[in-house]
């Protein structure tokens, strides 16, 4: 289990860096699709099948199609170089940020530690895990929280999607999706 996870993490980081450095935008989109697949696999490996499914369909499917449609409607820079030149100032700033975040690493609980705060605090997580079937009659706790306990939140999310669709139509000056 650990070795699969380590190899997947290496794959995901390599694809991420390749996406950042590839000069051709279409190549970056294709490598980003591979990144999304790897990331969805990593979510699934960390026992979040619902998230893995959603990320695969939306990250690798819908986002890739949207980016491709944008590329078809606009230009992409040509050129003979495969990779972009590294911007030293931006790289330095990002490196400093990585170091600052990295200093917090020893204070975080180990991955999968059963005594980490999010898992050991029984009043929240434990309540949902033990009571959700009795209260909502749904076996999948994620679905129970998403659709029953936080139904209004999910309703607001649907509103956001609707607003985004309207905004896209307004920005593109279209009356209907074609």
């Amino acid at each position, binding site marked *: *289990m650990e*070795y*699969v996870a380590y*190899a*997947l993490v*290496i*794959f995901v980081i*390599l*694809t991420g860096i*390749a996406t950042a450095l*590839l000069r051709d935008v*279409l*190549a970056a989109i*294709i*490598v980003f*699709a*591979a990144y999304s*697949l*790897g990331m*969805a*696999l990593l979510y*699934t*490996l960390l*026992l979040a*099948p619902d998230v*893995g*499914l959603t990320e*695969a*369909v939306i990250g*690798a*499917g819908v986002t*890739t*199609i949207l980016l*491709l*449609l944008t*590329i*078809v409607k606009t230009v992409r820079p040509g050129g003979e170089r*495969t990779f972009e030149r590294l911007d030293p100032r931006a790289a330095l700033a990002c490196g400093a940020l990585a170091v600052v975040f990295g200093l917090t690493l020893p204070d975080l609980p180990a991955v999968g530690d059963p005594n980490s705060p999010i898992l050991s605090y029984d009043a929240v997580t434990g309540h949902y895990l033990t009571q959700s079937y009795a209260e909502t009659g749904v076996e999948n706790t994620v679905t129970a929280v998403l659709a029953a306990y936080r139904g209004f939140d999910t309703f607001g999310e649907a509103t956001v999607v609707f607003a985004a669709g309207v905004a896209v139509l307004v920005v593109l000056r279209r009356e209907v999706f074609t």
Partner: protein
Amino acid sequence: MVNDILLGAAAVFVVLVIVVLYRAVRGPTMQDRVLAVNVIGTNTVVILALLSAALDVPYFLDIALVYALLNFLMAVAISKFTVERGGVM
């Protein structure tokens, strides 16, 4: 013991995916990249099936089915969008 063998095979498959990534990043033409991503997607489906058997979580197989559909869709969509004249199939 079979579970350990399946997990080891999954790890080897991920390493092979990393190897194929070279072609996706490097590959001189755009079709090389699409092909490499298609191979990566097929291997991802296989890795998911192996994990499903090894960790004994049957739900992973449903996700693998979705991945297989998506992988095919992605390969055909990208090859269709990159060709000006359209007809790929």
